[in-house]
């Protein structure tokens, strides 16, 4: 802020004139601003005037007159902001005080606002940076913890599957079922945490793909038929027949949204019915909006709880028999927002709950062709068993994979505990496929794959089908596997069927090459 000297020419300030002798004593003064007395030493009335002492010492009165704008002077209870002028006369120094307190206080407000806004912007910038760093840390923490949890979880789920195929007593069967259910619940919690973290960090991308709308809807009917029977409730589905057979949208996310709401409806409804209806809101050119309504006659939600329904880790039901992560509806809300949709909820305790979800879709105007089904593969005919090298350092996973593969009766299995050992094995023996954990010691799975692909002229080595596996089950890991030269990727925890399918597929493909 620029302070103009000689403001007294433009304003009408109060003025006080003080005459000093050469020793700094007040010879004469009016008392228009401050009640200073004749005979007082000026250096003692306010420290500002000490400057006069230095001026004399330093011979600074070359200009005869000196202006000091905007000086805060306090004397007892009187506080003023003055422009002060010193003039050197022959036998005295004349001091003139111009009181501009009101004007300066107005200016002060403007300066305060201006500076505060700059400082606030800077503070926000820093906070934003801090939040971004925190978010990054959170995401990497979730990704790491996910990996750490999934590895033992894979073993638990896998061994339960193996266990279920053995001869068990009724009690053992029940215990195995509980272990499986709880492990699946833990797995679902990890999936939810990762999804939420991806959505919140903007890493979850919406995919626009063509999918069979009716297949998706029928899937719900099938999925919930068992629980409908068990609970002896009615599950009614009303789908508008005018909705196109094939739509374009992110079917995975749409399934996730609807499945979450339906799961809740079934969880909290002990009698009565659940009605799932889908109607068209509007249709224009190749766009349409659908309204999904899921109504239940369940326990309902208290009105005061509704605003918190979509918050993370929110659970209003304290019944421990009803499982849930408390993340489902937070994910639903985030996904609906991500798909540019809307979600509304109406509920009354003991009467039931109704969710209304509006979602936009596109559709092809041209005639649709059905989606391809998953291709079936069979192992090529062979007089000997197929030899698989499992590269994995965790004993429990080694044992699980071995158990699954050997139980098929068509595979020999060798185990290597790290990349270095894997290289030695493939140099000694011919393998039909390698199952490669990505996180192994010495040389990691990616690097080991690159060595196999690039360092050997022998095609029996360089072209061995390799399937990577890891607890990091995201698209980035899959892409990284493919880029390093692997043929496929399987996330942990894997289902026995999926593992056998992928192994069969790769061996069959290699045989036809």
């Amino acid at each position, binding site marked *: 802020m620029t*302070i103009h000297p000689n403001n007294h020419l433009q304003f009408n300030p109060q003025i006080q004139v003080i005459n000093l002798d050469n020793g700094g004593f007040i010879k004469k003064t009016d008392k228009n601003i401050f009640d200073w007395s004749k005979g007082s030493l000026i250096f003692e009335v306010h*420290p500002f005037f*000490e400057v006069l002492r*230095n001026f004399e010492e*330093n011979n600074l009165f070359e200009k005869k007159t*000196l202006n000091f704008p905007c000086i805060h002077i306090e004397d007892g209870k009187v506080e003023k902001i003055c422009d002060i002028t010193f003039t050197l006369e022959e036998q005295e120094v004349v001091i003139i005080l111009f009181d501009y307190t009101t004007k*300066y206080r107005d200016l002060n407000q403007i300066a305060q606002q201006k500076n*505060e806004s700059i400082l606030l912007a800077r503070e926000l910038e820093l906070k934003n940076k801090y939040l971004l760093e925190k978010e990054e840390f959170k995401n990497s923490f979730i990704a790491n913890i996910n990996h750490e949890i999934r590895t033992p979880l894979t073993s638990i789920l896998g061994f339960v599957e193996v266990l279920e195929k053995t001869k068990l007593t009724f009690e053992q069967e029940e215990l195995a079922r509980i272990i499986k259910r709880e492990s699946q619940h833990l797995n679902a919690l990890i999936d939810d945490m990762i999804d939420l973290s991806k959505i919140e960090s903007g890493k979850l991308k919406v995919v626009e793909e063509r999918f069979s709308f009716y297949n998706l809807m029928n899937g719900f009917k099938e999925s919930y038929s068992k629980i409908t029977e068990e609970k002896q409730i009615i599950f009614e589905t009303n789908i508008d027949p005018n909705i196109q057979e094939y739509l374009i949208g992110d079917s995975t996310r749409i399934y996730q949204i609807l499945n979450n709401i339906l799961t809740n409806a079934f969880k909290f409804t002990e009698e009565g019915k659940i009605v799932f209806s889908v109607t068209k809101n509007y249709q224009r050119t190749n766009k349409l909006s659908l309204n999904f309504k899921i109504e239940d006659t369940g326990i309902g939600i208290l009105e005061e709880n509704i605003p918190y329904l979509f918050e993370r880790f929110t659970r209003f039901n304290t019944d421990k028999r009803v499982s849930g992560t408390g993340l489902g509806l937070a994910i639903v809300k985030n996904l609906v927002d991500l798909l540019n949709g809307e979600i509304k909820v109406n509920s009354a305790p003991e009467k039931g709950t109704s969710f209304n979800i509006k979602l936009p879709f596109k559709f092809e105007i041209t005639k649709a062709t059905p989606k391809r089904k998953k291709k079936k593969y069979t192992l090529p005919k062979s007089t000997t068993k197929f030899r698989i090298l499992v590269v994995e350092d965790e004993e429990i996973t080694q044992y699980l994979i071995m158990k699954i593969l050997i139980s098929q009766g068509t595979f020999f299995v060798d185990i290597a505990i790290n990349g270095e050992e894997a290289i030695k094995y493939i140099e000694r023996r011919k393998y039909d496929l390698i199952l490669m954990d990505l996180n192994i010691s010495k040389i990691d799975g990616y690097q080991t794959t690159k060595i196999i692909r690039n360092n050997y002229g022998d095609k029996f080595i360089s072209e061995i089908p390799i399937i990577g596996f890891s607890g990091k089950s995201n698209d980035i890991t899959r892409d990284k596997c493919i880029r390093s030269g692997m043929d496929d990727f399987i996330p942990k925890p894997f289902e026995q069927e999926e593992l056998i399918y992928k192994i069969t597929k790769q061996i069959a493909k290699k045989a036809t090459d």
Partner: protein
Amino acid sequence: MKLSKKVVLLGHFGVGKTSLFRRFIDNEFSEEYKVTLGVQIKKKTVQLPDGRELSMIIWDTEGHSNSIEDTRKSYLLGSHAFIYVFDVTRPETYRTLNQDLEYLKENYTKVPAKILGNKLDLVNEKEISNHLTSQNIYFDCLASAKTNKNVQDFFSDLAKEITK
């Protein structure tokens, strides 16, 4: 005659000159940011090691936005020391430090200028010290008006230096 020296606090706005001023003079601190318009002046008497008393007249000037040349020259006349204050959390407050010091050196040849980085409570001392050194920012002291860390010692050392 009692020994009296004029010391001027300089630097960008919002770096905490007034907080240092209040901490040194009255041993007070407030989180509230209040713009200083013009200059406020207070004195504090300090005891020197040789037993003499020094009256330190501290001029707390209005912070500038760009360069020290914006500060009114009459405020700087007759000074015995300058304290150039910057905010360790805001690089824009020390980006012009070297030019500003050059300006002071050219125009006030005999007046020593001390550099103080304020708001040390918000950062890690070692990290910021290394960072500033890597940016060629020379400083005499890193302090915190909020926690009073290094404030009193800094002024005591300054008092000794300007009365040598």
